[in-house]
């Protein structure tokens, strides 16, 4: 499998919430990196995962499929998934693929953290 053209930084901003900063391309090749970031971000009390898409450069339909499988995995643990930093184009993609029905989208990090009830 070709190397993933994505880097994922993990920030545990509190016991309750973690942010995964996405830089690069979200395609099928990003699967391993995304799952490793999820495991790293999943602390003992983590209730909310927040994907920061400010650095998203490219996403294809396989990348959308990855987000669905990540969402299912998170929901299975009774946790939630938020996103912020989507450009107009990627916000349209989320709406077109109906991901927006299940994943809350926020403008920026402060709004996403507020929603996760971080003081």
């Amino acid at each position, binding site marked *: 499998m070709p190397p993933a053209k994505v880097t994922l930084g993990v920030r545990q901003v509190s016991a309750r919430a973690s942010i995964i900063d996405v830089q690069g391309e979200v395609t099928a090749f990003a699967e391993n990196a995304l799952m490793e970031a999820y495991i790293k971000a999943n602390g003992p009390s983590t209730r909310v995962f927040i994907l920061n898409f400010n650095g998203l450069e490219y996403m294809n339909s396989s990348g959308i499929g990855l987000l669905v499988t990540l969402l299912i995995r998170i929901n299975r643990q009774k946790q939630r998934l938020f996103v912020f930093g989507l450009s107009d*184009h990627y916000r349209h993609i989320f709406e077109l693929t109906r991901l927006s029905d299940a994943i809350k989208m926020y403008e920026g990090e402060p709004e996403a953290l507020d929603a996760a009830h971080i003081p």
Partner: protein
Amino acid sequence: MTTPSTSSSESKPRDADNWAPRASSLRLGAVPSGALKLNVHGKQAVSPLQGFGSMWQKTYRVRLKGVSVLPTGVIKVWKEHFPEFWPKGNHFYGPLTGIAPGEVGLINMDVGPATLSTGVLVLYADEESFTFMTPQGHIFAGWITFSAHEEDEGVVAQVQVLIRANDPIYEIGFRLGASKSEDRFWQNTLKGLSAYFGVEDAEVETQAICVDRKVQWSQASNVWHNAAIRSTLYLMATPVRAPLRRMRKRNRQRPTSAAQ
């Protein structure tokens, strides 16, 4: 010194033209006469998140052994000849403009003794893959991605589905054997594609992963859109529909008598 504006229109993403444009519902274009044109126009496209049944990711792969072709060449052929690779008894009426983002295709399938009419939206297309998204009423809710890539000095063609059965009736059908029928459908499609490139009796690898075992009872009402039921009822009403239409036409054409 002016600060350059950074509107999103100025930094167009590389994938901008690969995705379907905004659309609230599917719009079907012209189709050949004789095709059953039901359960597509006006329907919303649905992802696996809007389906009812357990969520499955199934991957079907075939290696094009000994064929000198690039992945882009495989996808070009697949797009151009897509209906020809479908198993007999199933018809795909593609958009006249070809498989391109935003286009809508009509499907007529033989399901036992009945004909099911539904369709797909071309959600995404690039040179190495294209993805369909299913509408309300289709057998399943989700995405079907057709792709080709290089692997171990050869080319692999692949179909990957991420789906839930759209409603309880379809889910029962899946559990009673329709899932195996679906496997055979895509296996035969890949065999057809392989035969085009001169690879006879190609071996198709199949992998199935249950992503989410739970059904979504909140989506049980999807059965309202069930294309199999709607197609069957439509066809059953055919003997009555034509005479009724003729009667209405005669009533409209009959001259009205002047008021006395």
